[in-house]
C-alpha cells in the first residue's frame, strides 16, 4: 500500500501544465474563451473578471489554437503564477457561472485524467519502440480523446479499478461468464453463427464442459440459458446489486472465468483476445461515465448489432469500389446477447444508464482481416507524442521512406474515399474518430486502407428514407440514429476534421515540416478526387458539402459543463444547444468553390 510511483511532483506538474494548456486551447476552439493578441506570438484570454491567462501559441485552421504548455500563466491583480487545471476550472466556474454540481464532478474527472496522464508519462516509451508494438499493446500507450478535456474521467472507477481495468494500466484480464435464462436473455447472431457456434468458437471444449456442468449441478437445464461474458467491475457494481433477485432465483448463474487473456482497448469496455487473436473482440457494458456518456450498451442496440452488420457487409460486398479498391474493413458486430432487467424494462423514462446494464457484443477483430505484412493501428495513435516530445506520426513517416507529403497523401487516400463513399452513395454516417478508425499499413508503414468500427452504437442515417436504405433490416431501422444533413456530414466533419485532423495538422507542421495550408490542401485533393470519380448523386455533394465555406461548430466540452451534463436524462443522445458561430473551413477555396 504505497503511493503509485507515477505520482511524483514532476509527472504531476507536467501533466497539469499540459492539461491546462489543452483546456485553454479547446475552450478557445469552442468559443468559450477568446484569445486576444498581446504581442507577436503571445495571447491572453479573460476567464473571469480580473483573471486572464496568457500563453504563447498560434491560431490554427478551423478556429483551433496551439497553446504551448510551458508558457501558460495566470494573471490577476495579485500577480502572475503558473496555470493549474483546477484553478482554471475554478476561474471558469466563477466567470461562467457553471453549475456547482457539474463543476464538483469535473474536479474528480480532471483528477482522474491527471492521474492517468501521470501514469502515461511515467511509463511512456519512445515512439521508435511504440511503432514496433502490436495493435493491442499500442492501445495501452495512448493518451485518450484529443478534444475532450477530462478525457479519462471514468466516473465510477476507484483507484484499484483504475489499476486493474484502465487501458493505460495495460492489464491482462480474463473474462468471467454468466448464464442468463432465456426468459431474460436473447442471443442474436449473423447468419451461420448461432449461440452454440459462437460458444464453440470463443471457448475451448473443456471450458464449455465445465460451464455446462455448473448449470447441471445447479439443477437447471443448460439449454434454457444463454451465455455471455461480464466485465468484473460491472458484475460487482451493477449486476449483483441490481440482478440480486435473478441471481437468488437462478435466472442468472455465474459460470466463472474462461482461460483466454484479454486486453482492454482505448474504449475501456472493448477487449481484444491476446491468446487467440482470431477470436472475436468483446464489447461489454460498463456503467462508468467516461468522456460524454455512461458506457453501458442499451438492449435495443445489442439486439440490432448483428442485423446492422449483415446489412453493412452486404452493401460493401456488392460495391466494387469499397470492396476491391478501398478494401474497406468493417469489423462486424456478428453476435450479441441482450439481457433485460425485469424492473427497469418497465421504466422506459429512467435515466439511460439504468437501461444498459447487461449484455455483450462480439466483434470481428481487425487483425483477422489483415493481409500478410499489413499492420493496424488506430487513427488516434497518429496523435501520440512520446515523453521526449516526438510524434508517433513522425516515426512512421521516417520508417516509410516517403516524403511527409506523400505519406500524408497516402493516409488521406486510405481514410477518406471509403468514408466519403458511405456518406455520398449510401447516406451512411460512421463515427470515424481516432479510436473507431483503424489505419492499415503495408510492411513499409505506408497507410493503405481503413477499418472503421462501432456500427450499432454510432451509425447515423438521414431522417428521410433514401432508396439505399431499402434493405435495412427492421431491427436496425428501429434503433439507428436518424439525423439531418449537417449532422450526417458531421461523420466526417466532427469525427475526422474537428476530432483528428485539427490536431494532426499542427503536429505535421511542427514535426513533418508540412505547413498547415499544405496539410489541408492534401485533404482537399482527396475530396475533389472522390467527387470527380463519383460526381453522382450531385445533390448529395451539395447536401453534405465538405468544401462549404464554413462548418457549424460542435462544442463537446461545453456540453459537458452545462447543467444536466451529468446524465439523469432518459436519452443518451439528447440534443444540447450550445450556441456558437460557424468556423471557417480550411478545405474551402473561395476562388474555386461556390
Amino acid at each position, binding site marked *: 500500500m504505497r*503511493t503509485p510511483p507515477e505520482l511524483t*511532483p514532476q509527472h504531476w506538474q507536467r501533466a497539469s501544465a499540459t492539461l491546462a494548456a489543452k483546456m485553454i486551447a479547446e475552450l478557445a476552439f469552442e468559443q468559450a474563451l477568446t484569445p486576444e493578441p498581446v504581442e507577436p506570438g503571445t495571447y491572453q484570454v479573460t476567464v473571469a473578471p480580473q483573471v486572464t491567462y496568457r500563453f504563447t501559441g498560434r491560431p490554427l485552421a478551423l478556429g483551433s489554437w496551439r497553446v504551448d504548455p510551458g508558457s501558460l500563466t495566470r494573471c490577476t491583480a495579485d500577480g502572475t503564477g503558473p496555470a493549474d487545471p483546477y484553478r482554471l476550472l475554478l476561474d471558469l466556474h466563477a466567470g461562467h457561472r457553471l453549475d456547482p454540481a457539474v463543476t464538483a464532478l469535473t474536479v474528480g474527472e480532471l483528477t482522474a485524467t491527471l492521474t492517468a496522464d501521470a501514469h502515461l508519462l511515467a511509463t511512456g516509451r519512445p515512439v521508435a519502440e511504440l511503432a514496433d508494438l502490436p495493435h493491442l499493446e499500442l492501445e495501452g500507450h495512448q493518451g485518450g480523446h484529443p478534444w475532450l478535456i477530462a478525457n479519462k474521467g471514468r466516473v465510477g472507477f476507484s483507484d484499484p479499478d483504475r489499476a486493474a481495468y484502465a487501458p493505460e494500466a495495460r492489464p491482462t484480464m480474463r473474462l468471467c461468464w454468466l448464464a442468463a435464462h432465456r426468459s431474460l436473455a436473447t442471443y442474436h447472431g449473423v447468419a451461420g453463427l448461432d449461440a452454440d457456434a459462437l460458444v464453440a468458437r470463443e471457448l475451448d471444449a473443456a471450458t464449455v464442459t465445465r460451464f455446462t456442468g455448473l448449470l447441471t*449441478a445447479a439443477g437447471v437445464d443448460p439449454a434454457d440459458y444463454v451465455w455471455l461474458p461480464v466485465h468484473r467491475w460491472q458484475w460487482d457494481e451493477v449486476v*449483483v*446489486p441490481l440482478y*440480486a433477485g435473478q441471481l*437468488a432465483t437462478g435466472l442468472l448463474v455465474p459460470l466463472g472465468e474462461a482461460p483466454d487473456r484479454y486486453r482492454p482497448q482505448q474504449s475501456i469496455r472493448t477487449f481484444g483476445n491476446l491468446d487467440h487473436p482470431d477470436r472475436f473482440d468483446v464489447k461489454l457494458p460498463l456503467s462508468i461515465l467516461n468522456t460524454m456518456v455512461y458506457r453501458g450498451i442499451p438492449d435495443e442496440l445489442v439486439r440490432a448489432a448483428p442485423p446492422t452488420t449483415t446489412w453493412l457487409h452486404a452493401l460493401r460486398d456488392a460495391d466494387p469500389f469499397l470492396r476491391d479498391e478501398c478494401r474497406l474493413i468493417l469489423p462486424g458486430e456478428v453476435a450479441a446477447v441482450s439481457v433485460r432487467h425485469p424492473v427497469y424494462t418497465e*421504466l422506459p423514462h*429512467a435515466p439511460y444508464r439504468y437501461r444498459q446494464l447487461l449484455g455483450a457484443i462480439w466483434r470481428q477483430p481487425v487483425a483477422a482481416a489483415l493481409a500478410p505484412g499489413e499492420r493496424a493501428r488506430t487513427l488516434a495513435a497518429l496523435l501520440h507524442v512520446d515523453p521526449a516530445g516526438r510524434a508517433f506520426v513522425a516515426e512512421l513517416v521516417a520508417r516509410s521512406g516517403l516524403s511527409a507529403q506523400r505519406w500524408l497523401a497516402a493516409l488521406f487516400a486510405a481514410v477518406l474515399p471509403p468514408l466519403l463513399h458511405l456518406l455520398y452513395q449510401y447516406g451512411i454516417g460512421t463515427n470515424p474518430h481516432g479510436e473507431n478508425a483503424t489505419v492499415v499499413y503495408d510492411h513499409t508503414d505506408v497507410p493503405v486502407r481503413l477499418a472503421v468500427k462501432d456500427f450499432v452504437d454510432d451509425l447515423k442515417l438521414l431522417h428521410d428514407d433514401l432508396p439505399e436504405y431499402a434493405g435495412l433490416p427492421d431491427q436496425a431501422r428501429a434503433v439507428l440514429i436518424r439525423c439531418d444533413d449537417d449532422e450526417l456530414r458531421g461523420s466526417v466533419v466532427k469525427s475526422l476534421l474537428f476530432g483528428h485532423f485539427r490536431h494532426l495538422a499542427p503536429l505535421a507542421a511542427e514535426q513533418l515540416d508540412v505547413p498547415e495550408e499544405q496539410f489541408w490542401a492534401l485533404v482537399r485533393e482527396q475530396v475533389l478526387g472522390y467527387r470527380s470519380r463519383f460526381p453522382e448523386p450531385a445533390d448529395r455533394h451539395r447536401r453534405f458539402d465538405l468544401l462549404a465555406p464554413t462548418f457549424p461548430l460542435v462544442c463537446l466540452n461545453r456540453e459537458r459543463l452545462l447543467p444536466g451534463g451529468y446524465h439523469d436524462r432518459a436519452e443518451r443522445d439528447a440534443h444540447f444547444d450550445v450556441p456558437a458561430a460557424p468556423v471557417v473551413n480550411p478545405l474551402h477555396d473561395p476562388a474555386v468553390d461556390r
Partner: protein
Amino acid sequence: MSSATDPLTAARPADAGTRPAAAGSAESATYTAAGRALLARAIAELCYEEMLVPEPGGDLPGRWRIRLPHQVEYTFHARRGGFGAWRVDPASIRRRADGRTAPATDPTRFVLDAREVLGLPTPALAELVRDLIATQVADARLRATALPAATLADLGHEELEAHQTGHPCLLLNKGRLGFSAADADRYTPEAAGDVRPVWIAVAGHAARFTAVPGMDASTLLAGELDAATRAGFAARITARGGDPDSYFWLPVHPFQFDEVVRPLYAGQFADGTMVVLGESPDRYRPMQSIRTLTNVDRPERHNVKLPLMIRNTLVWRGLSAAQTGCAPVLTTWLCGLRDTDPFLRDECRVVLLGEVASVTVPHPVYAELPDAPYRWHELLGAIWREPVHRHLAPGERARTMATLLLEGADGRAVIAELVARSGLTARDWLRAYLRALLPPLLHLLYRYGASFTPHGENVVLISDAAEVPTRIAVKDFGADVELLPFDLPEYADLPADTRDRLHRWPAQDLAHSILSAICAGHFRFLTDIVERHLGVPEADFWRLVREPVDAYHGRFPELAERFGWFDLLAPEFGRVALNREQLFGIGFHDRADRDAEFDVMHGTVANPLHAAGPVGVIQPRPAADGLVQPRPAADDPARER
C-alpha cells in the same frame, strides 16, 4: 477483489464447493422471505405517512385493501397501533392483477404498481428500485445469519450490531448507494467482517486537529497505535522526505481510500502533502451506522467515525468539517454539564460517549466551491469516540436500544429474553428501562436546551448483571446535538463559534428528539413487540412512559416554563415523514447544505403521552409496582410465541 467476495471466480473448478443459486434453493427462499417482510414494511410505513390510503378490505375484521391504477390491488391483514401505526402481517399480503390473486412477496413489484399514486418522477423511481433491491439483499443476508433470541441476548455489543435490522421507519434502510456487491460483503454491519482502516498522514497546514483538553495528537496516537507501528509509519513519512512530527495521522475507511481519497487527493499524494502510512494492524467492525468502526483487537481503543461516500437512508455519509471540528468542543461542554450536575452525574449516571478528538482535511479545490453538493465537502476526516466499554462497571452490559426491536430466528423477541433473565415482571422491566432512558434526555432538553437524536442506534442501553436496565449511554454529538434558536444562560460555556455552527431550532422542533426519535421512531415499533411478546397492551405501555415524564416534571418544578416551550404532552404533534423525505429527496442530493430544512412533516399524529394522562389521574390502572393485574401468562415470555 478477493476470491471470497467474487462469485464469478468462486465458481472456478478449484472451488467446486461453490454452487450457484437456483429456483427452490435456500437462497431463493430466503430472498423471497426477506421480500415478503420488506413488502409488509413498505405497506406499513407508506400508509403511516399517508402516501397510500388503505380502505377496509372485506368482511374479515383487520382486512385492508389498497387500490392501485390498472386494476391492481393489494389486500392484507393489519392491526392498528398508536400514532395510527399499521402492523401488517407479511403472510397475509395478496396482490390482485389481471383478474388473478396471488400471495405477494415482491416489494419492487409493489412500488412499480404504486408508482402513479406515490407520484415519484421516474429518475427517483429508478434509484428507489436500486435502493430497494440493496435493502432486500441485506435483509436476506440478515435472515440467512439469524440467531435465536437467547443467543442474541448473549452477544456482546459489537457482535449484536451485525444482527440489527436497520432504521425501523425507513423502507429503504440499507441502500448504501455506492457500495458494490464486494463492498457490501466487506463493509456492511451484517457482513460482520473485519475492516482494517488505512492510515494516512496529512501535512499540518492541510488538516485541522481538535481535541478535548488534555488530549493532543501524540497522546491520541500513543493510545491508538503501538510504538512499533508508529515507528514504521513515521519511517514512511521520512522516506517521502517529510518530518513525521509535522503531519497529522488519521485512519481512512478502505472504501473511502480506494474510491474517494486516493482518486481525489492524487495531487496531494503526488506532492507529499499526504502520505500513505499503511493498514491498521488492529481489526475493526462496522457498527450499524456503517461508518463508525469499533476496534476488535483492542476494545479499549477508540471507536472511529470515518466518512464514507455512500448514500444511505437520507444522506451521503461523509463527515462535514463543521460537525467534525465541533465534536470535541461539544464533548467538553456536555461532559462538563454532566460532571457538575448531580442529577445527571449521580442519579442518572448517564454516559456521554465523548468524541475526544477529530481531524478534518478539507479538499483544496472543493474548499473553494462552497456551492458544490455537500458530499464533496465531507471527504476526509476522523472522529475518535470513547468506546462504551470504558464506562461500564463490572457486570454491566451494553446494547443499543435498537436491540429491543429485534426478534430472533426462533420468533422470540430479544426483549422477552431479557425480561425473562431479569426475573422482573414485564411492566417492572419496562419501568426500569424507561426510567433509565427518559430522565437524562429530558434533563438535557429542559435544563440545558440541548437535544440529541436518540434513535435506536444512538442510545446504548446499559443493564446490570441481572439484565435490568439501569442507565443509558448517548452518542453522536458532533452530528446530532441541536440547540434552541436563542441563547440560554446554560449555553454560556459553549464557545460562540461552536454555537453558531450547530443547528438551532425552535423548542417545538427540538421536542421531536423525544416525540419523533423516541416515541414515533422507536416506541411505535416497540409497542408492537411489547404487545405480542410481553403481553403488555399498548395503552399500558404509554402509561408507563408517562410515569418518568410526570415524575421529572414533579421533580423540577422550577423548569415549568420550559415544559411549556417544549410541550411534550401536547395532544398532537407533527408526523415526521422520513420516507417522504427520502423518496422526494432523491434528485435533490446536489444541494450544498445537507440539512437545509428540518425533517419533512406530514400532518399530525395524536400524542399517546397526552392520551395516557398524568399518573395521578389514572385511577383504574394505578402505576405503582405490583398493582397492575397482569393478563394471564402475559409476563411469562417463555409462553409467548
